């Protein structure tokens, strides 16, 4: 009963996209026309959006797929992201490879959406893999130089390794609970209930392994320090659109994964989890920002910046996790809401800045080094203004979206710090202070980019790129969103608060009393029974 009518209904948007992507893959071998395939991809995203709008929130329904607040928020964001990717990849693909490229992008988006909606370990893992596999293709297809080969190989091997680590961790989770369902409903028990009912069962001693392995595997997808080292090399060696894809989609899936598996399903490890997340957060912010200071390659700079932003997202997770460890009526302290909000504002700014890089290239080449941007404030005013907006937003300057991201994160952290006592409170205050100091460090390199665009005049002939259409459209769309969210943050905030509510509901549930602790059947016993 993995796929019943409910599941299909809930996954309708993903199904539309997968069907469209498959059609594009197949059709692309017969008919090579960039405009047709890009437009049909856009149409598919619109249809998927309609389907998602018609999907009701399933609050009490915990099948293998859930459509709670978190899943709804993330899936909407991913669909919007998908539209921008379709626009941004318009130029960067050669005519021959356009169908493969757009199809892969769609599949990667579907992967992230699946991971966001998954309520089952297997589906979650499948979602993560569905992001990775098309990404391997995107990294490799159509590029022949050494850098991109290195990038593709590096990403491929490390991604496989991290998937293995994650899978190993998930197997521990399964071993603890005896089921793959994350949150159960009345008839079936979820992992959360099973683990809460473990009591002083000796198997509970395995839970730290599960925690660490899952966090390591997902930390890779999030590009959190110390699992970050592939990011700069890979981003540098590929196109801006691919780098944008790598910088955003896996983060969605990883954030959803950490919320679903670690926060919701490993309640007995909450006390350790927030400490681990706190350390990861501090490391990611600091190392990401400090390393970004020295970069001259723009994609490398943005890679380190994306590592630092992962650190910020981890603040939200830390708060939610520490709140869960403390218990009470409001165990998330707005941490999940802040996480989703930050993810959204980061995604638009980051995607937009990569799109701007491909729009601002000169003479058919994307802008790669910081100096390539010199004088663009004059020669390409629209793209440069949008880039400045993204940089200020990433730095968290009001009144742009990034400011509200930092605001929600810091207020959730301080909220917990002022209501907690002792070490938890001190650590969270330290985390907030490190967070704001890092924001100041980060401003240094974001301002450098703005400074180069506006305060320096270009060297050499500064021809505008022939047709920046699609990438420019994506850039301006993202800039409009970043400014709009900055001026009217209410709507996005409401969506994220709904995500928070869903998670909180799960967290305040005790173990469902109707369930008896199940014996995990050993593999042999299971084979015998079947």
């Amino acid at each position: 009963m993995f796929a019943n009518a409910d599941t299909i209904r809930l996954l309708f948007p993903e199904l539309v996209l997968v069907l469209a992507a498959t059609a594009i893959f197949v059709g692309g071998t017969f008919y090579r026309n960039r405009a047709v395939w890009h437009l049909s991809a856009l149409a598919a995203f619109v249809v998927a959006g309609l389907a998602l709008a018609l999907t009701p929130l399933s609050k009490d329904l915990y099948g293998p797929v859930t459509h709670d607040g978190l899943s709804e928020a993330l899936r909407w964001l991913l669909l919007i992201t998908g539209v921008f990717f379709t626009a941004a990849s318009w130029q960067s693909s050669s005519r021959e490879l356009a169908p493969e490229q757009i199809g892969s992008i769609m599949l990667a988006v579907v992967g992230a959406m699946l991971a966001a909606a998954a309520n089952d370990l297997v589906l979650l893992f499948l979602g993560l893999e569905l992001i990775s596999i098309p990404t391997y293709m995107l990294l490799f297809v159509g590029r022949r130089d050494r850098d991109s080969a290195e990038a593709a190989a590096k990403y491929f091997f490390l991604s496989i390794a991290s998937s293995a680590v994650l899978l190993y961790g998930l197997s521990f989770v399964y071993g603890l609970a005896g089921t793959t369902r994350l949150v159960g409903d009345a008839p079936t028990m979820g992992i959360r209930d099973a683990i809460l009912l473990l009591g002083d069962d000796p198997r509970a001693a395995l839970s730290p392994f599960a925690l660490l392995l899952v966090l390591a595997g997902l930390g890779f997808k999030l590009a959190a320090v110390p699992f970050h080292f592939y990011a700069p090399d890979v981003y540098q060696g590929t196109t801006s659109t691919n780098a944008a894809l790598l910088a955003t989609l896996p983060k969605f899936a990883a954030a959803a994964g950490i919320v679903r598996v670690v926060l919701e399903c490993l309640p007995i490890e909450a006390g350790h989890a927030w400490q681990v997340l706190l350390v990861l957060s501090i490391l990611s912010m600091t190392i990401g920002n400090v390393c970004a200071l020295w970069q001259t390659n723009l994609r490398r700079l943005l890679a380190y910046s994306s590592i630092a932003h992962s650190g910020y997202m981890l603040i939200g997770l830390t708060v939610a996790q520490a709140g869960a460890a403390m218990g009470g009526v409001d165990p998330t302290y707005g941490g999940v809401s802040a996480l989703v909000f930050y993810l959204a504002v980061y995604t638009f700014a980051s995607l937009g800045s990569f799109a701007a890089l491909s729009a601002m290239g000169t003479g058919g080449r994307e802008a790669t080094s910081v100096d390539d941007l010199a004088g663009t404030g004059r020669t390409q005013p629209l793209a440069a203004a949008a880039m400045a907006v993204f940089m200020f937003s990433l730095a968290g300057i009001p009144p742009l979206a990034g400011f509200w991201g930092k605001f929600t994160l810091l207020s959730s952290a301080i909220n917990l710090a002022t209501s907690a006592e002792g070490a938890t409170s001190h650590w969270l205050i330290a985390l907030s202070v490190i967070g704001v100091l890092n924001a100041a460090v980060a401003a240094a390199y974001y301002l450098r980019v703005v400074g180069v665009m506006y305060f320096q005049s270009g060297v050499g002939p500064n021809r505008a790129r022939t047709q920046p259409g699609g990438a420019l459209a994506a850039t301006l769309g993202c800039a409009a969103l970043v400014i709009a969210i900055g001026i009217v943050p209410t709507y996005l905030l409401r969506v994220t608060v709904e995500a928070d509510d869903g998670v909180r509901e799960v967290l305040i549930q005790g173990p469902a009393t109707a369930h008896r602790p199940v014996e995990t059947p050993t593999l042999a016993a299971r084979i015998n029974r079947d």
Partner: protein
Amino acid sequence: MPAPLERMTDSLLLLIALLLPLAGAALLWIIAPAGRDAVRYTALGVTLLTLIAAGAVVYDYTQAAPLLENPAEALAVTDVPWLTDGLLEIHFNIGVDGLGVWMFGLSALLFVTAVLVSWEAIKDREPLFYAMLLLLEFGCLGVFTARDLILFYVFFEFTLIPLFFLIGIWGSEARRYAAIKFFLFTLAGSLLTFLGLLAIVLWDYQRSGSLNFSIPELTASLADRPMPADMQLWVFLALFAGFAIKVPLFPVHTWLPLAHVQAPTAGSVILAGILLKIGVYGFVRFSMALLPDATVTCTPWILWLSVAGIIYGALVALAQADIKRLIAYSSVSHLGYCMLGLFSLNVLGANGGLLQMVNHGLSTGGLFACVGLLYERYHTREIKQYGGIARRLPILAFFMLVFTFSSIGLPGLNGFPGEFMVLQGMFQRAWQDFTQLNQSMTLIIAVMAMSGVVLGAWYMLQLVQKVFFGPLKEPELHDEADGDAHPVVPDLCLREILALAPLVAFILWIGLRPNDFVPAFDRSVRPVVAGTDAVLFQRAMARQAALQATESTPTQEKIARVR
């Protein structure tokens, strides 16, 4: 009490004054292709209309405020929900009260001056320049009218972006470095301030159950339920980080001279005239009003830092060879007086500090404008290249002299009442203090601050004397010199006179009738000082009780020994 209808028009006027510059910036973008003159005149028109609207608001405030029941209340309030999700209540809440009203008016005035002095000086990308200037005006007006904590912070940070571009694009040689240093210094501090402000709100939320971002309500709520002393101290330090850098207080002032020297004239005028005051304003609005206990604890430290800034700034100014640098260091010195006045923790001193804030905006804003006009004519800011310029440019010399005298506190001009009240406040503090140690310390600080007045007169008069008097010595004009004859340098034209004249008018007005201005500050400062007074009183009582306890034991011993 004005009729409700009038109040509504006031709210509308304030809203217009605030939003006009924003609309103007957008308008400039549209009319940019119409050419340089269209852009300049539009910018001037927008700032003038803003000035008229702001002037009306300020006038109505001065008329209506004395009749208010609660003198600290704000007028012309507009309050609409901005960010609400059921729990969060962030409002777009603006209004003018006594603390902000004069700075609000001064901002509107100085931006007209800023546009007029940029008229010929800016020859590159004018639409962007004036758009940035108008955005900066939007931010400045917003800072002094915001009544919501987050709204205040948004305006506070927002001012950085336009000034960053103003310095970075239209500044002098080292402009990129200066722009980035200015931005990073201020941002680093203000982020910590942000954390402190959040801590205040969330602490209040834990106790009162409502997530309140409204500044007046927070002030009232924290007066009822003050924070514990140790927490106040931490929050105070967090706020201090941002405001002290903005002021700038002594050890963290290093960004200021650089930013001033590199900024275009309009940028310097606004930076000195308005942006620095945001720090002082933040101290009185947040640190002192919300955290009275920590304020009292930190007062000695801040007084020492202020007086160090006064003397250090003055001594460094004495040694400068660059006119703009000299005035920049004089700002460090003068802002010390504002801080000294505020942290004398009595009504007289605080009024003086706040008045000095407006005075410094007028005089130093005017000085930077004069230097800009001089630079426009001779293309150098080096003091030793000038001499006897008063013969060549008598009108400019006249304005320079007025601003100089205002700056050094000549009686009859605005600097005098401000400095006088600050120093009197300090001496009053010295007599009020309880322990001998505190008394003598405050006295020493007050006397040292007096010496700053003398030093101030020294470096400013020296500057004027060297540049404007003595034998005529004009800098070489390399680019335009054709032949041996020195090209004729024109004196101020009508536009330039009109840019400076309003400042002089206000300098005289404040100097002759300070009581037209002080009551507004007085109304709003009293509740703040009452808060710190209560803490001082408590401490004095506690100290006395402790003293009695320690005294009683030896006396008893003595009696026992005698027996």
